[in-house]
């Protein structure tokens, strides 16, 4: 599969994502600079973490208007898979590709730690391969990861099964104490209505090898790869 990993000025998880995709999963991954206007031959897009454009004005606010994001919007409109990680999640909400917004952590602290994630539904290209009932141990590193959306948006997210991951305890309980940033409904990641665009604050690309203290992040990429392979097989048939 061909992955496109976007690069904005001050992206800093782009190399982690490319390393995971190329060296751990054996797929093709290339960087796409923010000034590019086309994605080329791409099966899926990763919008990586970092501090795009210095996070000036608001996280993701300026990246949203970059030339490459216009190509990403078109790619998503055509049904392409897009995963935003951390700052990438913020960029996707600013771009209107995902509902809601990410605001300052409730304790105003930057959180850099491992947390646990409950996968709410296997029904998405991002969660299909995650073993049922498994709490994923994955790192977070953010100051503005508190998910906010108005009440009607939250109702819609629940009704349409768009909440993919929630912060939970090691035993999988979604509790207030397991919520690192104050996110509403403990939301760590969501997808759009069409289920081809997802974003999450935790960093699965930093948890794909046992050397990195956890390889639970693999399940998310393996889900994407399996969904892409299924799509390719369906096209060929």
């Amino acid at each position, binding site marked *: 599969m061909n992955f496109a990993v976007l690069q904005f000025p001050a992206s800093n998880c782009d190399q982690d994502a490319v390393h995971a995709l190329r060296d751990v999963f054996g797929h093709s991954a290339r960087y796409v600079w923010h000034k590019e206007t086309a994605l080329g031959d791409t099966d899926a897009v990763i919008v990586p973490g970092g501090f795009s454009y210095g996070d000036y004005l608001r996280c993701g*606010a300026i990246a949203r208007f970059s030339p490459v994001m216009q190509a990403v919007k078109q790619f998503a409109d055509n049904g392409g898979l897009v995963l935003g990680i951390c700052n990438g999640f913020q960029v996707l909400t*600013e771009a209107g590709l995902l509902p809601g*917004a990410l605001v300052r*952590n409730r304790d105003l602290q930057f959180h850099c730690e491992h947390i646990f994630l409950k996968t709410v539904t296997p029904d998405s290209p991002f969660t299909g391969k995650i073993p049922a009932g498994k709490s994923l141990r994955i790192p977070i590193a953010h100051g503005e990861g508190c998910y906010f959306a*108005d009440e009607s948006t939250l109702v819609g997210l629940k009704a349409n099964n768009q909440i993919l991951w929630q912060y939970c305890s090691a035993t999988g309980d979604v509790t207030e104490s397991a919520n690192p940033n*104050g996110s509403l409904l403990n939301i760590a990641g969501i997808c759009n209505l069409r289920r081809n665009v997802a974003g999450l604050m935790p960093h699965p690309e930093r948890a794909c090898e046992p050397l990195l203290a956890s390889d639970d992040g693999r399940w998310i990429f393996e889900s994407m790869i399996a969904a892409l392979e299924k799509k390719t097989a369906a096209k060929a048939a």
Partner: protein
Amino acid sequence: MKAKIVITPKKAVVDPQGKTVRSALEQMGHQGIQAVHVGKYLEIELDGADREAARKSLDEACHKFLSNPVIEDYRLEIE
């Protein structure tokens, strides 16, 4: 001409900065502070004299870019 834009968090959004500033003010002995909302202030210097055209253009910029309507309100003044 000059545009002055004040952006504040919506009431429904938790504002931990505002809460922290409020409790600091209380600790300093300032009385009667009900709530503090920490926002942003932008000053934009403009060419030309057509206030209405400037307002229309900047109102759109505020809505699409300078503020995020999901979490923020804005107030635009042109002088």
